[in-house]
């Protein structure tokens, strides 16, 4: 079809004065000739004098007509009749009801017993007049004292009164695992209470000293709590150069340039100023962006200025350099970033970057291997859902739910919208298959936040879980079929094809109705069952203990060698048993403002052994390992091998 390039090149040769721009014009003209040779030739001779591309497109002898102005109307607000409300038999919104009397009990709510219910999250007032009061905070699972048991870091928010010194600042919690099913808040002693308007947490060993550190994002300056190896931390964010200063959200750690040092990506949400609070009106935010279903609510994020994203390169000396522009991940349009994740989506051994954006297109940046990224958001299929809608993306879960060696992505989104599941088609291409997978319609009334792929039943197929809760308290005042507080959702993976919702049995963890935000998953009791912790807006956290899994399992703690990050963030691991090859990746971040267990957990079904463990280390090294048995957590060290098996803790089991 395209014949012109040869002609165009010939034109350059024949006419030394025909510069590159002229050539480009000619190419365009020649292209147009294929549609309309008439208009092309008549203008081509004039191209040098009129290098305007559009020039060639004007049909000769046809006077341009003015574009009819669009009609204007008066007043009003945005339309968009929402989905019909879904209610259960007791007329409760399905998000706060729909329970069943009996069924499989997956999670037991052990928050009270574990000692977490003495801690309360607080963010703004219950009226939620401003968007800064609505998004809530995250959870980080961290073995901060290297005792082999996961501890829990819970980010807290703040209030305007606290900022003004009129009331105490809400404290973040660091819950030390007592190995007996209980936890003790040691945040004050450890020096990690934050005392700022806390949003997210990303955990990793950024200085490769073998001790995990904590990065806390805030509205305000962020903190980097360096682990002092003695149960305390020191905030080194200023010295490290990673404080930023406005509204940072779900950060992620990853060694994008392969130098063995973990780099840090920090999404920005809205640029929010205390002395310029958003309000609707002629001089403020358009009314449309301050209403939901015709009801006045807090303004934003649409209509508000976006806060840019930042990539910090780890200099290896305790400092970082902002390379956002150079790496081409600076978020020039100012999309509303909420979560991010470094992970290798195209299996080329380099960490790519996902950013979940609220009400704006998501980003997928492919790592080019030269210190820069290529924005393939639209081309990959990840920017929008399958129907072309920009979703209000909150959290990212990445996992190989089909066991084909490629990481799929699940994003949580707003109510009235389904939650897209992006199937990895290879080479950085994704297809939203939420409807085909059976999780679209059922997820519509829920407003999802933290999420994770987790194999709750250890059958070897990764399931999906998300925490839910609305941002508008008004949801409880109108028959919208949704609610401020919502139950979490768990979807069972039907062997890589469809998912089905696990029923919320009354009295169990899945029937707990809270305004969920951050979610982290991990084996908190070292018993081979994946548990879940949820940070609830203005409420008590949930510790949902897995009491369901019966199958065999294998836990892996990875330690990187000299050329990899010490905590092996970025490693991809394939475990083969029978004819199944599962994949999991060591990552930090993803789930809304949260970090899950850094150890990898493989459900094995009936298998009592694994035939191969294949580790793709961040350094590029590929190693195969074997383990003496399953139902244990083993440590694998790059270049060294397997050591230190931990079997389910007797104390923990006895306490159940």
């Amino acid at each position, binding site marked *: 079809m395209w014949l012109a390039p040869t*002609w165009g090149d010939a034109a350059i040769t*024949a006419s030394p004065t025909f510069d590159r721009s002229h050539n480009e014009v000619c190419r365009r003209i020649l292209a*147009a*000739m294929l*549609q*309309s040779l*008439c*208009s*092309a*030739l008549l203008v*081509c*001779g004039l191209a040098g004098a009129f290098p305007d591309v*559009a020039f060639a*497109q004007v*049909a000769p002898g046809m*006077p*341009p*007509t003015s*574009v*009819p102005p*669009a*009609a*204007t*109307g*008066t*007043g009003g607000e*945005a*339309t*968009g*009749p*929402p*989905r019909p409300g879904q209610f259960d038999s007791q007329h409760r919104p399905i998000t706060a009801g729909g329970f069943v009397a009996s069924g499989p009990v997956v999670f037991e709510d052990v928050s009270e017993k574990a000692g977490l219910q003495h801690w309360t999250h607080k963010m703004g007032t219950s009226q939620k007049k401003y968007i800064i009061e609505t998004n809530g905070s995250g959870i980080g699972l961290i073995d901060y004292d290297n005792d082999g048991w996961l501890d829990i870091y819970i980010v807290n928010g703040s209030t305007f009164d606290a900022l003004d010194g009129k009331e105490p600042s809400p404290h973040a919690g660091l819950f030390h695992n007592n190995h007996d099913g209980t936890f003790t808040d040691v945040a004050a002693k450890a020096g990690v209470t934050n005392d700022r308007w806390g949003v997210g947490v990303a955990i990793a060993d950024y200085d490769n000293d073998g001790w995990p550190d904590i990065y806390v994002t805030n509205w305000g300056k962020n903190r980097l709590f360096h682990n002092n190896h003695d149960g305390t931390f020191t905030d080194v964010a200023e010295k490290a150069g990673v404080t930023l200063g406005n509204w940072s959200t779900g950060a992620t750690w990853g060694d994008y340039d392969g130098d063995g040092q973990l780099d840090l990506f920090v999404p920005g949400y809205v640029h929010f100023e205390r002395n310029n609070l958003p309000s609707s009106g002629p001089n403020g935010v*358009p009314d*449309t962006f301050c209403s*939901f279903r015709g009801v006045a609510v807090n303004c934003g994020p*649409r209509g508000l200025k976006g806060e840019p994203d930042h990539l910090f390169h780890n200099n290896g000396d305790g400092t970082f350099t902002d390379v956002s522009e150079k790496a081409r991940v600076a978020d020039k*349009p100012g999309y509303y970033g909420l979560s991010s994740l470094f992970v290798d989506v195209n299996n080329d051994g380099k960490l790519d970057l996902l950013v979940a954006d609220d009400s704006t297109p998501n980003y997928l940046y492919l790592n080019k291997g030269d210190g820069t990224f290529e924005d393939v958001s*639209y*081309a990959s*299929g990840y*920017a*929008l*859902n*399958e*129907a*072309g*809608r*920009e979703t*209000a993306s909150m959290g990212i879960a990445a996992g190989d739910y089909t066991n084909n060696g490629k990481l799929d992505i699940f994003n949580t989104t707003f*109510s*009235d*919208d*389904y939650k897209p599941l992006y199937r990895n088609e290879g080479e950085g*291409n994704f*297809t*939203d298959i939420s*409807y*085909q997978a059976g999780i*679209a*319609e059922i997820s519509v009334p829920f407003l999802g936040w933290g999420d994770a792929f987790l194999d709750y039943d250890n059958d070897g197929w990764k399931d999906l879980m998300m925490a839910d809760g609305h941002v508008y308290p008004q949801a409880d005042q109108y028959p919208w079929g949704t609610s401020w507080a919502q139950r979490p959702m768990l979807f069972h993976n039907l062997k890589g094809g469809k998912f089905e919702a696990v029923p919320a049995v009354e009295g169990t963890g899945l029937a707990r109705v809270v305004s969920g935000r951050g979610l982290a998953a991990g084996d908190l009791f070292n018993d081979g069952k994946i548990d879940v912790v949820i940070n609830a807006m203005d409420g008590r956290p949930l510790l949902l203990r897995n009491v369901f899994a019966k199958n065999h399992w294998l836990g892996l703690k990875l330690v990187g060698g000299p050329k990899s990050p010490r905590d092996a963030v970025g490693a991809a691991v394939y475990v083969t048993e029978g004819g199944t090859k599962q994949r999991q990746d060591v990552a930090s971040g993803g789930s809304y403002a949260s970090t899950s267990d850094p150890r990898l957990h493989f459900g094995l079904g009936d298998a009592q052994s694994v035939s191969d463990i294949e580790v793709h280390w961040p350094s590029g090294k590929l190693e195969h390992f074997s383990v003496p048995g399953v139902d244990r957590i083993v440590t694998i060290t790059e270049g060294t091998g397997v050591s230190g098996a931990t079997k389910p803790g007797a104390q923990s089991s006895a306490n159940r």
Partner: protein
Amino acid sequence: MLKWVRVSGLLLFFVCPLSFAQKGAWRQATAAELAAALPSRASVENERIETEMRTASGIIDGHKRVIAGTVLITAGYSAEGKYSHYLLVQARLNLGGIVLKPGQYVMGWTRDERADVLKAHLNEAATGRLIGTIVAKRITDSNRVESLRIWPPDEKSIMQIGRFSIPYKVMEQ
């Protein structure tokens, strides 16, 4: 260069009338052209709804006639709002079997899960009057998603919504 022009001229002499009548030189409209043509707030029935201009797409011909559209910002992030897209049509258009006169339209869709298609409905923007319903089929040869893309007729002659497409044909006046 001169030789090339002469050759082109000969070709043109024979092909010009047919070519022009058939295609009218519709091409992809530039961002500036779209911004000039599409409203920042679309009048829909008795309301004025914000448009998401970064999603605007369209084609333009030699008469500066535009066929373009953009996503409407509907309240509450609704994926299946009654109207999701605004369309400005300045030349008769057959869209998925429905002939649209020059005018302003709005479009919404619902997903047919069984058929794996979008069922789109076209309405007159000023009155909300239903013009008709059309089916957008899944595009299988590309992963690229678009909020809205009206491809130039010499390339694909489709309107793409997400990963679904509706064929169109610009009708001669």
